[in-house]
């Protein structure tokens, strides 16, 4: 980057460029996320096209939609969603993630509103057509309060997408023992099994906010093909769409 800003510490810029490169390297540390990303994007895009009556085949199929991505990391979802035409706000509590996301968006020449904050700290009157909570509920301290905020910020005409890990024995075996210890995809201690949330628990929290689950899909990994795919098995990873009822 031939950045002309003079107030920026070049060492800091270099650090964030490295971090952003790490996030965006499909063969690097974030490889599992890159592998699963097309699946998540397809799910979100298709749900949006159904809901807002768009054609998923046309470029810019999300144009005009305001999307909030909670826990956006370095923008792996924000960038493609922006290219599809959406106006995206990406929030992440990690300052370095947000800096890395900004570095990459500048290179991609995409306008994305990245903010280093949490949904609890955001202006409660902001509204979005789509609110994304992808792989975050298993990390928050109060799932109920978190989902209340998500619901409040989703326009009545819009929807929410939540993806997370179920609390089953199988998920314990696969997500913690498998992903963290055996495959070493994730640093040990990334997940606490007790924090995993079942679809029923999500449904209860959502119901309180008059939101209903209108679609639910399992996400399964096949080790031989090294591929993720959508399935009806929600025992481990799952995604869902929730809409105001």
């Amino acid at each position, binding site marked *: 980057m031939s950045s002309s800003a003079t107030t920026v510490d070049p060492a800091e810029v270099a650090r964030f460029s490295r971090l952003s490169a790490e996030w965006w390297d499909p063969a690097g540390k974030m490889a599992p996320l890159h592998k699963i990303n097309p699946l998540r*994007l397809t799910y979100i895009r298709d749900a949006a096209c159904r809901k807002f009556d768009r054609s998923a085949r046309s470029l810019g199929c999300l144009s005009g939609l305001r999307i909030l991505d909670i826990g956006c990391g370095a923008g792996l979802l924000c*960038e493609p969603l922006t290219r599809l035409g959406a106006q995206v706000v990406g929030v992440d509590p990690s300052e370095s993630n947000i800096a890395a996301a900004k570095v990459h968006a500048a290179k991609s020449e995409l306008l994305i509103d990245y903010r280093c904050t949490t949904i609890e700290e955001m202006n409660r009157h902001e509204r979005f057509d789509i609110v994304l909570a992808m792989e975050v509920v298993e990390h928050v301290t109060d799932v109920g309060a978190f989902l209340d905020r998500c619901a409040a910020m989703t326009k009545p005409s819009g929807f929410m997408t939540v993806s997370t890990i179920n609390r089953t024995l199988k998920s314990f075996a696969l997500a913690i023992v498998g992903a963290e210890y055996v495959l070493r995809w994730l640093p040990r201690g990334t997940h606490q099994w007790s924090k995993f949330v079942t679809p029923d628990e999500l449904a209860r929290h959502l119901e309180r906010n008059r939101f209903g689950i209108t679609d639910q899909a399992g996400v399964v990994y096949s080790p031989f093909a090294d591929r993720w795919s959508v399935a009806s098995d929600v025992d481990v990873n799952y995604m869902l769409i929730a809409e105001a009822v």
Partner: protein
Amino acid sequence: MSDHSGRHPVQPIAVVGGGPVGLAAAIALASTGENVTLVARKVPYVDNRTTALLGKSIDFLDDIGVWRLCADKSAALKVMRLIDDTGRLVRAPEVRFSCEEIGRAAFGYNIENRLLIAALEQRASECASLTRIDDDAAGIIPGDAAVNVIAKGGQQLNARLVVGCDGRHSLCREAADIAVERRDLGQTALTFNVSHTRPHRDTSTEFHTPSGPCVFVPLPDQRCSVVWVSRPDEAARLSALGDAELGRAAERQAHSILGAMSVEGARFTFPLSIERPARLAAKRIVLAGEAAHVIPPIGAQGLNMGLRDASDLAELVAECLALGGDPGSDDVLAGYQRSRGADIASRTFAIDLANRSLISDFLPVQPARAIGLGLIGSIGPLRRLAMREGLSPSWRNNLLRMM
């Protein structure tokens, strides 16, 4: 790495080179709806080469709206004959393939390159999302986020993805820092077109001589295109003959099966080589067509491979764009390498092998070839397999290995 994206707006896709592969790739990519810039000088096509378009190539050209513009200028190929004319101790029996055996109306269609290019140019000019820079690329500078393309006349653009369809001495390949392994074959192809007194009956005939193949491929009416491969001195001698003499030489080579021949227009010679780049993509640049593979003209594979490059790439890019991806990302590049690598490598290998066995004086190779051709010719299922495979991926494993 330098990054020039700040100075010029970034385009999603640029195609460099306006040969048949570049034009087809640009049209196919533009049909995704995304903006595509084609950097290629509009020049009249100079040589008289023709292309036997096989199986999937026709489907692809049809899909991108080109085939309807030139179908009537092509000649159907319904029968293919391979004749051993090596005069060697052990001769292969004649092999005759008929498209009816595999339930197709034709194996493919032969068309003059200049007519195919005219159709491609016309279609390209109709594409709303295709912009043309009528110039050569003089500089290709890969950057982190985009590739800077500088035209000879000074015009510049930045593209997320650059498709290098700039032929044998590919500037794009050089810019991507991709090494190429090149081997001259010590053979030259002489090309010319003839009209003849006896009908070709939609049959292409390939004579296998000790110095290389000589093939007569039907053109519309009572005409054929001739590709005559021989040692360079022999090709030079033939090329220097007067029309009447060359016509007689061609008739002799064809054992008069097409009657008397008269040569139409000019002749061209092509020194043959095999070129293999170390990879097909790097640094936001992908290679297609002869930038990615040069093979001798045996079995009419070259441009057919190039069109598959274009078609597979367009499909990958369409998938990427549909999920809001960056068309020049490593994902797309790796996907292209995966989808094209094996096909290109195995065909290049097979064609090389076929060519070597043809010109080999090493005796054990001769019966092996003879038996191989004989087997393919006489066993129904094998024949059909060989034919079908010749049309689309993997005749590598069958027909040619046996030759």
